């Protein structure tokens, strides 16, 4: 069986002007990302702001067309954005964003908003279908008559999920779905995502900066840095023994209650995607960088020892000769 979603060498560039009369600068938000999502699997995409994780989410949904590379959904290429074929396919892939209040229309009752995708895709908007969707996300059916401002943050995010599930999608892309919620409510929404994923055999791309949350919901995680995936593997394997120096820094930055802080603090600022360092983009902040890292871009490939996919000369033991 083919994977539900395959992305191959995605590149997305933006043109940016520095200053009023400055020259055009090219910003590579996504710089050669390949990923594979098996049916019923959740892939967690972690990284800091500006690493291209949200753009990657938009590219796989076809909300933006990649400058290079291709996305295949269910074995077929994703049609051009805006085309009728794309619209038809959109029913099978849905997106959930960070800010539920921004994602909902404040002037429409929740029930109307959940029924909208049913109408758009000609599925027929039966009232009991809306009630069923509300129940699925843990809201009472009478919430259909309420307006977004009458709901709490967690309830709004549940309503957004109900709307996303209305067309019974195969793929759900969640972009920081819990970041705007309170700690106690985050746990509720994560539980809901785990349940929905298991019950509906949903395939999920879970985008977050929070490694704890990503471990909580994902079968596999991919760490992004400056538009590239630098490490990919099972959540526990990556968290216990991160191979890439950047992943190591991310893991050690997780506040660990009760554990004395022997934190590895990364030096320097988060990098600027408009001025991508040559070679390995991480080398200016990397504590173990060798000469090769400055000019050779490392390739994401399985490590010899345990098959972990990592894009690092040092972790791959390739750089030792040049270092000497």
């Amino acid at each position, binding site marked *: 069986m083919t994977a539900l979603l395959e992305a191959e060498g995605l590149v997305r560039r933006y043109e940016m002007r520095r200053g009023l009369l400055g020259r055009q600068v090219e910003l590579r938000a996504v710089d050669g990302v390949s990923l594979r999502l098996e049916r019923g699997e959740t892939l967690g995409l972690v990284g*800091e*702001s500006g690493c291209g994780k949200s753009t990657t989410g938009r590219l796989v949904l076809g909300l933006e067309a990649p400058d290079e590379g291709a996305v295949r959904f269910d074995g077929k290429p994703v049609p051009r954005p805006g085309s009728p074929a794309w619209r038809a396919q959109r029913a099978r892939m849905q997106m959930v964003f960070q800010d539920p209040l921004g994602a909902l229309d404040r002037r429409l009752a929740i029930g109307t908003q959940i029924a909208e995708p049913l109408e758009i895709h000609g599925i027929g908007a039966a009232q009991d279908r809306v009630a069923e969707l509300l129940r699925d996300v843990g809201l009472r059916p009478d919430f259909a008559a309420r307006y977004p401002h009458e709901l*709490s*943050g*967690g*309830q709004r995010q549940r309503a957004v999920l109900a709307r996303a599930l209305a067309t019974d999608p195969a793929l759900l892309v969640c972009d920081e779905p819990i970041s705007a919620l*309170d*700690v*106690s*409510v*985050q*746990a*509720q929404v*994560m*539980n809901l995502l*785990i349940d929905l994923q298991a019950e509906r055999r949903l395939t999920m791309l879970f985008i977050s*900066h929070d*490694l*704890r*949350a990503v*471990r*909580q*919901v*994902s*079968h596999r995680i991919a760490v992004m840095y400056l538009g590239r995936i630098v490490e990919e593997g099972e*959540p*526990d394997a990556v*968290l216990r023994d991160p191979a890439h120096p950047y992943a190591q*820094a*991310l893991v*050690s*930055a*997780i*506040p*660990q*209650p*009760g554990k004395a*802080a022997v*934190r590895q*603090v*990364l030096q320097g*600022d*988060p990098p600027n995607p408009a001025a991508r360092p040559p070679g390995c983009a991480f080398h200016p902040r990397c504590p173990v960088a060798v000469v090769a890292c400055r000019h050779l871009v490392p390739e994401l490939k399985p490590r010899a020892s345990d098959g972990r996919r990592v894009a690092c000369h040092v972790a791959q033991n390739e750089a030792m000769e040049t270092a000497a």
Partner: protein
Amino acid sequence: MADPLVRIAGLRVEFDGIPALRGVDFEIASGEAVGLVGESGCGKSVTWLAALGLLPGKARVTGSVELDGQELLGAPMAVLDRVRGGQVAMIFQDPASSLNPVHRVGRQVAEALRLHRGMDGTAARAETRRLFDQVGIPDAANRIDAYPHELSGGQNQRVMIAMALAGRPRLLVADEPTTALDVTIQAQILDLLGRLRRETGMALVLISHDLGVVAETCERVAVMYAGHVVEEVSSARLFSTPAHPYTQGLLSALPPLDGLPRQHLPAIPGGVPDPRALPSGCAFGPRCPRHAALCDTAVPPLLQVVPGQRAACCILGADLPPAFGPVAA
């Protein structure tokens, strides 16, 4: 505490008759690092805005806030001007909106030096440079003349910290100082705050929604819920033996880093109560698994559990099972 640096007693705040703080008692010793944890709207920021007289005029503030024995609530402007930015400095979540975008960052720090230490000209510039070095801004000599938009979020937060240090504060209140920053930058800023505290001996109040961040940086933690402090405990005991069901719930809602993945978290049901319609008695009652009739009768006071740990709960006891344990299989 013999002579606390700050003593907050019975602090209450109302906005248009809607309570935001409902009686907060809190003490901070000199040089101590205390964390203030809670969800949005619990009053953790309002406590300090009220203490420093920074709330808008429509807020009704009662109670007492003493700094070194001097009452701050209703104090004359001249006193508050000396305290704010001088003895007590505050930094906020979003450094970019705290800085003036049309002035160079060095000038903004120099302004604080002029106001609180009477420094001018070359002396102020030299001291600004020293402060920039102290907070770890690389290439300090040139960054002094940068505008906020030319610096990253982490660097702007360092500028804010430099500005806070300009008045040689005895207490730094950091309100979610790392929430808007990336994870790796958050680690840098927390390290910096810890180092500065050791170097200068100032006390630190770290306001955060993140239990992990607070426990790592602070010796003592106060957990707030719906305008009350519901538990006060050392960071060590916070994770080993939390007493209040809300604290226990917050801790168990944190996804673990080991054990079976993709298991249900023991989440606290429901949401934070609406301050316009607070439940009678304990505000956490409706969400609490230990809830009993007793809980609805009166707001429980903070009582000592063991020395160094106080909790505001009607049903306390060492032999009680955790309110939010791992979900039974």
